[in-house]
C-alpha cells in the first residue's frame, strides 16, 4: 500500500487517484467530521493527501479503514484498540476479543519494560518505593501469561519504573474488574459498600466514618444512605490517591447503579 505523506501532492501512482474532502468521508461512513479528525490525529487512521492549495483530500482506502474500524466496534471492540488495529499498529490477531487484546498489550508492555530495566534496580530485598502492596505481584502469575514470573519476582525497582507502571495498570484493571463483577451479585446495599471498601483498600487507601473525616478524606460517601456514611481516605499526592482518583469515580457510579436496581426491585416486590 502506498501511503501519501502528509504535505505531499496528489499522486496518480497510488492506484487510488480519486480524492474527496473529509465531509464526503463522513457522509460515506456515517461518522461526524470532528470524530474523523480525532481518529486521524490520534490513531493515524487516515492518510490525507494535500492539494496544491494545501487542502486535505482523502481516498477510498481511508473510507475502507473507517468502515473496518466500525465493523470491529460492531463486534465488540472498543474504538481505541479497533482503530489501532486497523491502522496497523497492533500485533494482535484480528480475531482477538477486546479483553484478550488488552491483556496482550499489557503483557507486551510489561515484558518490554522488564527487558529495558537497568540491572541496578534488581537490588533484592528493597521494598518498592511505589508503596504498592506485595500482593499485587500475584497478578503477574495470572494464567495465560507468556511472561517470566521468576524474573519478575526478583525485581525490586527503586523508583516508579515502566515495569512498575505496567504492573500498577494491571492491578488497577484487576481491582476494578473484580469489584464490578462482585457488584452484579449484591443482595443488600451493605454488600455494595463492602465491595467498595475492599476496592479502596486494595488500591492502597483506607476508609473512615464521615464523623471522623479530615481533609485527607475524599468527600464521597460509600454507604448510599444505608447506615453511617463512610469516606475513602488517601494521603494527597500519594500513589494510592492517584489510583483512587483514576478508578473510584467510575466504580462508585457502577455501585450506585447496582444499589438503584436493588432498591427498585425491592420496591416492586412490595
Amino acid at each position: 500500500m502506498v501511503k501519501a505523506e502528509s504535505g505531499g501532492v496528489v499522486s496518480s501512482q497510488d492506484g487510488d487517484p480519486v480524492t474527496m474532502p473529509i465531509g464526503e468521508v463522513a457522509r460515506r461512513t456515517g461518522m461526524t467530521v470532528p470524530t474523523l479528525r480525532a481518529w486521524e490525529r490520534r490513531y493515524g487512521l487516515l492518510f490525507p493527501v494535500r492539494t496544491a492549495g494545501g487542502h486535505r483530500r482523502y481516498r477510498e482506502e481511508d473510507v475502507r479503514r473507517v468502515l473496518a474500524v466500525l465493523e470491529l466496534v460492531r463486534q465488540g471492540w472498543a474504538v481505541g484498540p479497533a482503530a489501532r488495529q486497523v491502522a496497523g499498529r497492533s500485533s494482535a490477531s484480528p480475531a482477538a476479543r477486546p479483553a484478550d487484546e488488552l491483556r496482550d498489550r499489557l503483557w507486551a508492555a510489561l515484558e518490554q519494560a522488564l527487558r529495558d530495566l537497568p540491572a541496578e534496580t534488581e537490588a533484592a530485598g528493597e521494598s518498592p518505593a511505589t508503596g504498592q502492596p506485595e500482593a499485587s505481584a500475584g497478578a503477574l502469575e495470572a494464567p495465560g501469561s507468556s511472561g517470566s514470573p521468576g524474573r519478575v519476582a526478583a525485581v525490586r525497582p527503586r523508583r516508579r519504573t515502566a515495569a512498575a507502571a505496567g504492573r500498577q495498570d494491571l492491578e488497577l484493571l484487576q481491582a476494578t474488574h473484580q469489584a464490578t463483577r462482585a457488584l452484579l451479585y449484591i443482595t443488600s446495599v451493605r454488600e455494595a459498600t463492602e465491595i467498595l471498601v475492599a476496592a479502596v483498600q486494595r488500591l492502597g487507601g483506607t476508609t473512615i466514618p464521615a464523623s471522623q473525616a479530615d481533609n485527607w478524606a475524599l468527600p464521597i460517601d460509600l454507604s448510599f444512605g444505608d447506615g453511617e456514611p463512610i469516606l475513602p481516605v488517601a494521603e494527597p499526592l500519594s500513589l494510592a490517591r492517584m489510583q483512587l482518583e483514576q478508578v473510584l469515580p467510575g466504580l462508585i457510579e457502577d455501585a450506585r447503579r447496582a444499589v438503584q436496581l436493588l432498591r427498585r426491585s425491592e420496591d416492586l416486590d412490595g
Partner: protein
Amino acid sequence: MQQPRITTAEVERFVDHLARRDRRSAVRQALGLSEAGSSVQDLVLGLLVPAQVEVGRRWAANRWSVADEHAATAITDAVLAAVSWRIEAAEDQGHVVVTCAEGEWHSLPARMVAEVLRVHGWLVTFLGASTPANHLRRFVDEVGAVGVVVSCSVPIFLSGALRSIQAAQAEGVPVLVGGRAFGPDDLRARRLGADGWAPDPVAAAHLLGEWRHQPPTVGKQPAGMRDAEPLELEAAEPELVEAAISELFLRFPSLAGYNETQLARTREDVAYILQFLEAALLTDDSRLFLDEFLPWLTGVLTSRGLPAAVVPVGLEALGAVLDGFPRAQDLILRGRQLTTDRALDS
C-alpha cells in the same frame, strides 16, 4: 401544563426526613408528589435543590456535622434515583455527556442536571464524580456527543474544570458549564474558555437544543489567562502555607499551645484560603474571593465559636508571605479591609 407548585411546607417536611435519616419516608413523599402531578423536573428544582441548599446551610451554621450532611445527600440521591425511573422521554434529542470537573467529587448537582436533560429528551451519559480529564477526552472521542456538560460546585476545582473543558474541546466537542462554582453569570465560564454557561438545568437543556441545530464554533474564546500567577501560586502552595503559619505564630502566641491535630487543621484552613485565591486569579473574578468566599468563611468560623476578627488576622499573615504575587496581595488587602469592617460591624 397545570401542576401543583411544591410548597415550602413540603420542602421542610422533606428536610425533616433527611434530618432523621429516613430514606423510605423521603422517597415516599417524593413519589406521592409525583402521583399528585409533579413532574420530575418540578421535583428536582422545587424539592431536591432547595432541600440540598438547606443541608449546606445547616452544615455551615454548625447545626449539622459532615456525617449528617453526607447522610442527607445520600438520601436525596436515592430519591432522585427513585423519581428518575418515572422519566419516559424519547431520548431523541441527541447524545450529551454530563460530568463533574476533574477534582470535583460533589456529584449530586451534576446528577440532577443529567436527569433534567433526560426529561428534555436527551440521551445522557453520566460519568460521575471527578472524571480525570484524560478519561473524559477518550470517552467523548468515542461517543460523538452534541455537547459535554461540566459541573463544578466548589470554586477550588475550577482549575480542574479548565482541564475538563480543554479535554472535551480537544476532541472538537463543545462544552457547556454550570454549577455554583461558576458564580452568578457567565464571566468565569468565558474566562475558562467554555462554549456556554447555564444558570440552571432547564437553561442547559435549551442551550444544548440550540447547539443541536447550530453547533457552536468550539473553543471560540480560548481560556485567556491574564498571567501565570495562579499557577505559580499553586506550585508554591506548600511553602506559602508553612510561611503563613510562622507568621500566624507571631500574631497569635496562643498557637504555640495547639496540638498536632489543631495545627494540621489550621494548615488546612490556610491552604483552603490560598486555593480560593488561586481560583479568583485564574478566572480574574475578585467577587469569587471577596463576595462569596470570605463571607462564607466568616460564617463558618463564627458559627464554630471563633471571633470574626480571626479572618482579617489570618489574611494579614498570608499577605505577609505573598511577595512576588502582586494580584494575590491586592486581593488579600481588599479582603482584609472588607472583613475588618464587617468584624467591627458585628
